[in-house]
């Protein structure tokens, strides 16, 4: 689905590794019955290959692609460095549900508590960059962990949550650097389009997923 942050992870990896792929978008507000045969949980992203093998859960799809396809390795070979990327991923893990909660509640109630929680999570990531003293979360070049967390940072502006990175200068710098990456900019979503999608999506409109087409 064109606006899904989780699916964007997989698209980033497919593009970063130059993997030939086809995209089938699913209307998440009106799922086809057959889609549950692809993923019993009915969620995107799902990968399907020519052997009929199905892989789901966004982080698992990304790791699968890195292992199964040649070319630039996005995860480090060194076991400790690889473990470090996964530990950073764990540090990030509360962010998607916080953002989702914020989306559901922002029109109904005061969300300053949620924003504070988000700021707290972002400071953990700021600390990682402070300790590592590198431009990216995996070192001096962009790697898997950066792509895995990017989609949520990309959406901060559209969601009017930029204030949450107000006290995290290294994180802000990382965001600016990420935007210059060719893979990231190729998949950039227009702020207005995303905002219109969100409005329709929250109203459960079956047109939401196709907004802009």
């Amino acid at each position, binding site marked *: 689905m064109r606006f899904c942050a989780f699916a964007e992870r997989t698209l980033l990896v497919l593009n970063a590794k130059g993997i030939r792929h086809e995209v089938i978008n699913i209307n998440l507000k009106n799922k086809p019955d057959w889609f549950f045969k692809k993923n019993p949980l009915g969620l995107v992203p799902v990968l399907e*290959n020519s052997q009929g093998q199905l*892989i*789901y*859960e966004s982080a*698992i799809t990304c790791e699968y692609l890195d*292992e199964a396809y040649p070319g630039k390795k996005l995860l480090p070979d060194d*076991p400790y460095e*690889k473990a470090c990327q996964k530990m950073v991923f764990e540090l990030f893990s509360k962010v998607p549900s916080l953002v989702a909660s914020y989306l559901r509640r922002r029109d109904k109630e005061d969300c300053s508590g949620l924003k504070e929680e988000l700021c707290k999570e972002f400071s953990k990531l700021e600390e990682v960059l402070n300790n590592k003293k590198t431009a990216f979360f995996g070192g001096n070049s962009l790697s898997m962990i950066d792509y895995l967390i990017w989609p949520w940072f990309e959406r901060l502006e559209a969601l009017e949550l930029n204030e949450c990175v107000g006290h995290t200068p290294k994180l802000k710098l990382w965001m600016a650097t990420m935007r210059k990456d060719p893979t990231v900019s190729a998949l950039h979503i227009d702020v207005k389009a995303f905002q219109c999608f969100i409005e329709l999506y929250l109203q459960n409109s079956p047109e939401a997923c196709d907004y802009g087409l």
Partner: protein
Amino acid sequence: MRRRLEIQCEDETRSLGKGSCPPGPVPEGLIRIYSMRFCPYSHRTRLVLKAKGIRHEVVNINLRNKPEWYYTKHPFGQIPVLENSQCQLIYESVITCEYLDDAYPGRRLFPYDPYERARQKMLLELFCKILDYQNTTYFGGDCISMIDYLLWPWFERLDVYGIADCVNHTPALRLWIAAMKQDPTVCALLIDKNIFQGFLNLYFQNNPQAFDFGLP
């Protein structure tokens, strides 16, 4: 007289609590696991250490009375944590297990095939969802319902052996088990621990008397 091979790992040591001295650096050739004897999460890592024959030392942590120095190993004082002789720290049980599989030679526990690896990870996600799926007392809401009865038999059997006293990790599950044991239906059918163990002993010996164990 033949000497018995020394066990390479000894996890039956007293836990370290507040006021304890931090252990020194990890000697070369060894990896240290910070653990607790009854915790299912660190149990995972100990299984992998054992399965791969990795030389290690165990430091048990008193989870209700954590040493101050332990927060330098894990920001929230959780277990398991691995520490190697290069002072590298790895935590989150699944990450520690994968690290060990990658870093140490010998028997590979994760499959080589990327798809098979992905399948194992998907299965783990499903399992974790059971653990995470609770935001209510019972799996179906505030009252006991079908799903609770459908899951209970497996947890009752784990409970017979004493489910791990892992305060921080699965408080919701512990509460659910306690709540279930108060349900009259569950109580009425609760298996006696000794009888169950007696059954299992005979069962694993393929003894046909197993099924009638405990009957007069």
